[in-house]
């Protein structure tokens, strides 16, 4: 009897700890078919996020770059590298590269990138220090509670719109994130939706 009770408590605690996305999603770092390293391209080479993820400023999806984008450079640079064999094959055949998707909200969530990136939410807030990731890691839980934490208090995460893709940005000397955030929230008139229809349609 007591054992059953204790087992139930243990199960609930386990569920509470292991169940949410904070545990199940954070740290997910699948091996991609092509060993693309953000650390090298976005970090070392300094490529802007927007060079490849072009949808971010106008559309709901950020868009994974097409093979053509890769071939812009790799037609000549490291053209015969075995690591890029799949890219070359994709470009020649017209079949897409089958990347493994890391960040995905459930189908009943309609997330819009442009509404965030153009209004003062940086890439790093949700995707982490991508320019330091040799393999893309799921950095934040992207759970509804996590989203609402920011939607309810956007001042904790806002940054100037121009700094959205600057993964190394910090608030300048003397200013706290919160103070700057409050100022920007007022200036941009940020109204992060808390009503259901903001994300669920």
């Amino acid at each position, binding site marked *: 009897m007591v054992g059953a009770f204790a087992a139930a408590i243990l199960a609930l605690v386990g569920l509470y700890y292991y169940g949410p996305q904070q545990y199940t999603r954070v740290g997910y770092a699948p091996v991609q078919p092509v060993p693309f390293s953000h650390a090298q391209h976005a970090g070392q080479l300094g490529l802007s996020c927007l060079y490849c993820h072009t949808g971010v400023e106008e559309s709901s999806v950020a868009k*994974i770059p097409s093979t053509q984008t890769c071939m812009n450079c790799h037609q000549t640079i490291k053209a015969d590298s075995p690591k890029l064999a799949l890219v070359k094959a994709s470009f020649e055949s017209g079949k897409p590269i089958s990347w493994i998707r890391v960040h995905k909200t459930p189908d009943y969530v309609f997330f819009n990138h442009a509404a965030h990136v153009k209004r003062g939410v940086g890439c790093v807030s949700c995707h982490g220090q991508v320019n330091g990731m040799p393999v893309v890691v799921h950095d934040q839980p992207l759970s509804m509670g996590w989203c609402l934490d920011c939607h309810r208090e956007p001042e904790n995460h806002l940054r100037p719109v121009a700094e959205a893709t600057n993964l190394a940005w910090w608030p300048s000397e003397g200013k706290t994130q919160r103070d700057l955030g409050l100022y920007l929230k007022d200036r941009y008139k940020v109204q992060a939706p808390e009503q259901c229809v903001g994300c669920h*349609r």
Partner: protein
Amino acid sequence: MTQETASSMEPVALPTGKAYWRSLDHLADTPEFRDWIERRFPESMRELLSGGVDRRHFLQLMAASIGLAGLAGCRRPEMHALPYSKPPEEVVPGLPNFYATAMPRRGSALPVLVESHEGRPTKIEGNPRQPDSGGSSDTLAQASVLELYDPDRSSPVLQQGKPASWKDYDAFAAKHYAAIRERKGKGLRILSEDLASPSLELLREHCRAVLPEARWNIFDSVSRANAHDGAALAFGSPVIPRYQFDQAEIILSLDSDFLGLEEDGTRHHRGFSRGRLGEGKTPTMNRLYAVESQFTITGGMADHRLRLPSSHVRDYTMVLARALLDGEKVVPAPGSPQAALRQALATYKPSVKLDELWVREVAADLRAHAGKGIIIAGRRQPPIVHALAFALNATLGNIGKTIELRKPPARPAAGTLQELVQAIDKGEVETLLILGGNPVYTAPVDLGLADRIKKVATTIRLGLHADETSGLASWHLPSAHYLESWGDARAGDGTLLPIQPLIEPLFDGRNVLEELARLTKFETSLPYEIVRRAFRKISGTADAGFEAAWRKFLHEGTSSAGAYPIEHPALKWDAVARAVIATRPGPGSLSASNLELVLERDAKVDDGRFANNGWLQELPNPITKLSWGNAALLSPRTAQELGVTDGDVVRLELDGRNLETAAMILPGQADYSVGLVLGYGRTACGRVGQNVGYNAYSLRTSQAPDVTLGLKVSKAGRRTPLACSQQHFTMEGRDIIRESSLADLGEHSLAGHHHEEELHDIQTVPVTHGEHQWGMAIDLNTCTGCSACVLACQSENNIPIVGPDEILRGREMHWIRLDRYFAGDRDDPELVHQPVACVQCEKAPCEAVCPVNATVHGEEGLNLMVYSRCIGTRYCENNCPYKARRFNYFDYNQRPLDQLWYGPLTEKGMPETLKMQKNPDVSVRMRGVMEKCTYCVQRIERARIGVKVAAGGSAPGKVPDGTIVPACAQACPAQAIVFGDISDPESKVSRIKNQSRNYDLLGELNTKPRTSYLARLRNPNPRMLAGRPLPGGEHA
């Protein structure tokens, strides 16, 4: 494993498992053309269609990846993201593109804009730049997108009914056509419908040059011959009338459903609704007199309606013409042609007694509004009625003002179906090429076309579905849909419209232009090039400006080229007089043993071509509210005399042929006139339309394709259920419809009608603080009940169909319910339509009772539905006084209609092509979830996000009025639905809601709905009020 969207999983082969090749493969002559084509269509779709990975392989992949991932298999399953390899230039994933094209219809085409998501057309909208559409559309246009994706569309080429390939056909055709060309076309007949397409005309001309011995026959299941003959009789030349209803103050419809089943309905709606109620201090309103046998939506809008069997309309027209001409102030000189017409009319003896008021007062009213009236005759009426209508219009001075006459270019003469049958009997036909249509199903039964076709050595048939005609053909070739084809068409006034493809042929279809070009060895067999040549020819653009003009043509979806010239021909009075003398009087009084049969095309499946379209089958017929089938329509008196009730099966006997059909009693039907719509009872259709309804074509003869006499109706002794979505005629004492007359307008406000007592608050709800407050107004005075809004909503919001069994249980899923109310006399009622969807109550009864807060109130006044929270208690549906909520009793999307109740461990899924139609901005709902109208919240959010994104680092403004147009408002051809921000007093919706006609539906419940209605007005002739019901329910 969850079913994810196409973007996140490996592509799966289509159910047929066949490999698809690009239809333009063989045309890849020039690298520039190939490059151009490849840039238009997305790589991911090509992947899908080339048969990528099949199901078994995919499951192996998934299992392998789970195994490799180890404990990571405890997480969400691995999903893939597939970007383009070489992306097309103008496609931004997540944002739709809009392309202008045209939907070919009878005689003309409806200009449309098609919304395309990543290369998949998902929604059809009207083209606002073209006056025929003006931004709105109709039911058939809305449903055509589903036809594109119909999984029952024929896919492989069929040779004698067995699957073959294009290679086989091309090999055969090369030899066969070469022989035909050598014989200069002897023995070749081409049978097609009457399409107004300049590129087709170009090929026809070439065909006549290259194959002078070949003959072209044209057969239209729904013919406009009477109107053409009438115009030819009256004016001596086949002019086409174009009616400007917005200029008309008095309209007389002689058996003409000009708002519905006649052509140009969308444009007529627009004009008619403009004239319905003017703005200003003393508003004026047009007046519509309708003389008809069937109850149509035109009759529903009429201020006065005369129920007359179609065969008596001729009598009425003669008597009216006489009254009108006799009352003219200017008496024509004796011996003049006008006098001859009067003389002829005076000698005509009508076979029935006609209502005195209807003759005298209508004539007087028309005369009083001379130059501002329209007399329009319907398709069914014989040419003399059309000719007389033109004569009367000419007398009244309407021609050139409210009626425009345009002269189409002369077209080469084509044979009729009768001639084709005779030629086959004489053995002159060796090869018969059937382009489109479905002549074996739609041909008059006395011609015996099926037997004749069997006699022809080679029949090649190009069609969308493998239908009744394909069953007899040697070769069946899948045709490309208009959304997959290059082509062109003409608008009602002759201006050129482009038809441009939005997607590669999904089912390997071939364009009719290509087939004809190959047959005649035209200089090019690329439809794109043929259309360009036709455009160059008609527009006459010089080479220098051609590319710019061409691109503009494609972008706008319209052009100024090709307009038929406006003519002012003189009326041939003597010809009309002679025709009047030659006309025999009507058939005299009808009775229960001598009935009239009126065959008409269906408002939904047309002549049968859309029978496999689930949306159209399920849409309740605008007047009868019958879905999934047809029925013989009887007036209450006729039914009483025959002893027939709703749902009885009756036997119709006509000329030795009989047909058993269901019977339905329709108040307002003319006595002793039985109406039956065509297009049902198909035997080779597809899984949706197979054997649905009763085949009226089995009673249709070539002598009398529309109206026949001598029908006998008897009971067959059994009953059948009718899937009618509206059986009740009672409003339980509530003033759901508010109506008034133009004369009474302004006398008292209709808003607070009957409710002087204090309204009780049933709940308190905090005030909403959003930037905008959304509201909607629906004008019952212009709503005709055409149902375009219902289908637009279904198309935009991924609403599934449920099938006839579920309709019988009252579980239809349409978010908009078009209520039809009769008023007045049982036999001769008036009709009002009212579209009801969720009215977004501010004090919503549904929100208070949801146990899980799945329906909450938004900051901008919307009643939000959150599908992910709903657990399906259905308490909200119960509490809604408008009954506007719909529950997914089954997984209607993933289960076939005959397997709805299968359990969770059985196989389920949606055909791949149907998935492509779904709007990606709207959830597709599963079983157990409630849904309802959301004011197209995806469009609202798209606009609000757009304003924010545009603002960037500054304060976003409000969304400008008119930016957000819900699907229903956009589709409505009468512009009856207006949506906008009610917190802005200058917005269109605010101004409309301030009108005295504005009222809240069930306002006494104090739900404070955001959707309000504008009361219906009637404009009766004060001299014709005897016996009419007054808006309050009393009689005059």
